[in-house]
């Protein structure tokens, strides 16, 4: 059968290599383009490398759910009592950590209500909550999750996140960002903080958007699937997106940027959210070009090659900048 590697390497050896890549990528925190390239090269060598990587990465991301132990609310009865019984060692570890840190007042936060999550530029992280909800953080994002028996609140300090929420009317799920409140009404939705306001896009179900400042003359609006609201302190616009457009906006969930007749400066701005190497388009003639393409978020090289080979543009790397001109 084709695709089966000719060179023998034991499953254990492959798993060991894959786990090193995954740890560097997800946990060490200095993952860059050349790391991505060596990973891609290794994955391309054999489908067995890819299945090993997929399998271990899936297990590793599943383990992210363990952080639910930090903020699992009291109303999940059985699981809580199990956790208490089985997790003596967690307490022991916490005590050990407290002793090592030399802080007598160390307060292990697993019953706490405030947990912070963040991603670096180019990062992507999925958080699974104890209630079965899922939150995906896009690049350069900072958010806090506060939960108790009657509330589930997320503060999006900066960046962008996609929410797949297990709806519970008795315990509403609320996202606070830039003076706005987004309330889940049984839904999948995206919230992006963009400097002076928010963008909210609903994929499934409905979500309510309103200002947190109640003195404001503004009625709450309810968004339906395909609707995208952009709201600032004094302006609100709602547009209906096509399925293709909505999918494009969520391409980052699969590590992809999708463009449809997008002007190059907008393409560059989008790329620059994900990479420390910044694309600069200074030439107004170049700025008028539009492209339709699907490209990896953290591969500035892919964009540079496309600009050079398909658009015939001049590409020059200067320090942390890639200059594009005619």
């Amino acid at each position, binding site marked *: 059968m084709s695709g089966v590697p000719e060179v023998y390497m034991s499953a254990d050896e492959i798993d060991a290599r894959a786990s090193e890549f995954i740890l560097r990528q997800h946990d060490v925190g200095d993952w860059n383009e050349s790391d991505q390239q060596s990973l891609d090269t290794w994955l391309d060598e054999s489908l067995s490398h890819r299945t090993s990587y997929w399998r271990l990465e899936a297990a590793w991301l599943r383990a992210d759910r363990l952080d*639910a132990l930090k903020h699992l609310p009291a109303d999940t009865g059985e699981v809580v009592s199990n956790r208490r019984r089985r*997790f003596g060692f967690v307490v022991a570890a916490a005590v050990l950590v407290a002793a090592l840190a030399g802080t007598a007042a160390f307060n292990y936060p697993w019953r706490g209500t405030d947990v912070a999550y963040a991603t670096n530029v180019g990062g992507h992280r999925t958080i699974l909550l*104890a209630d079965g909800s899922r939150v995906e953080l896009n690049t350069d994002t900072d958010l806090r999750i506060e939960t108790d028996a009657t509330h589930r609140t997320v503060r999006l300090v900066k960046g962008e996140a996609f929410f797949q929420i297990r709806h519970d009317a008795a315990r509403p799920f609320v996202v606070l960002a830039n003076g706005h409140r987004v309330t889940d009404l049984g839904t999948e939705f995206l919230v992006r903080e963009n400097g002076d306001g928010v963008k909210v896009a609903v994929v499934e179900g409905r979500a309510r958007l309103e200002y947190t400042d109640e003195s404001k003359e503004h009625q709450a609006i309810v968004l339906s699937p395909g609707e995208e609201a952009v709201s600032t302190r004094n302006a609100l616009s709602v547009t209906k997106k096509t399925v293709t457009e909505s999918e494009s906006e969520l391409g980052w969930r699969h590590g992809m940027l999708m463009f449809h007749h997008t002007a190059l400066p907008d393409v560059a701005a989008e790329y620059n959210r994900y990479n420390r190497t910044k694309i600069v388009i200074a030439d107004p003639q170049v700025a008028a070009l539009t492209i339709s393409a699907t490209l990896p978020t953290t591969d500035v090289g892919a964009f540079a090659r496309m600009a050079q080979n398909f658009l015939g543009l001049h590409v020059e790397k200067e320090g942390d900048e890639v200059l594009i001109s005619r």
Partner: protein
Amino acid sequence: MADRPRIEFEGAPASETVRLERLKAWFVEEVLPLESVLVQFLSRGGRGKAEVEDLRQELYTKVCAAAREGFPHPARPFVFTVARNLLIDRLRHEQIVPFDTVENLEDLNIAIDEPAPDRVVIARQELRRLQLALDKLPERLRNALVMRKVEGLSIREIAQRTGLAEKTVEKHLTEAMRALAHILYRENLGRPA
């Protein structure tokens, strides 16, 4: 708008990436959950641990190579057919044919049309299963995993708090990752069989 030059570009590498993403989703969601039953089957006939791992890896590679053209839904009968063929090939190669090995595969097929459990139930079971998996890890790996995944400490912070070198912490975490995958995909952790 209309006078703007418009250039269409759909590069081959990009569509390859999207295709691989789909293959990955299918593999993770439909094939990996079969691992415990598959490994049980591949272990028959007195194979050693390392050999079973290699067989499993070969099986996954074959399954994904065969699925490149389209993803069989449900995956179960397809994966079992590939497993059966792989094992028959192997037995032929070894020139030993213990009859029960191949026949027993039929027993495993009984569960092929098992309905997917309710999503909510999965969410609750998942945390329980992770807790049980955590309990089964050797202590040094478990401690590293708890500090990283429960407390959310960085590798540097774990190294500072435990007095271990960062490289050692990384080694513990990669070992924990592999051990966790084996436990999660293999062992009966309260999952409906």
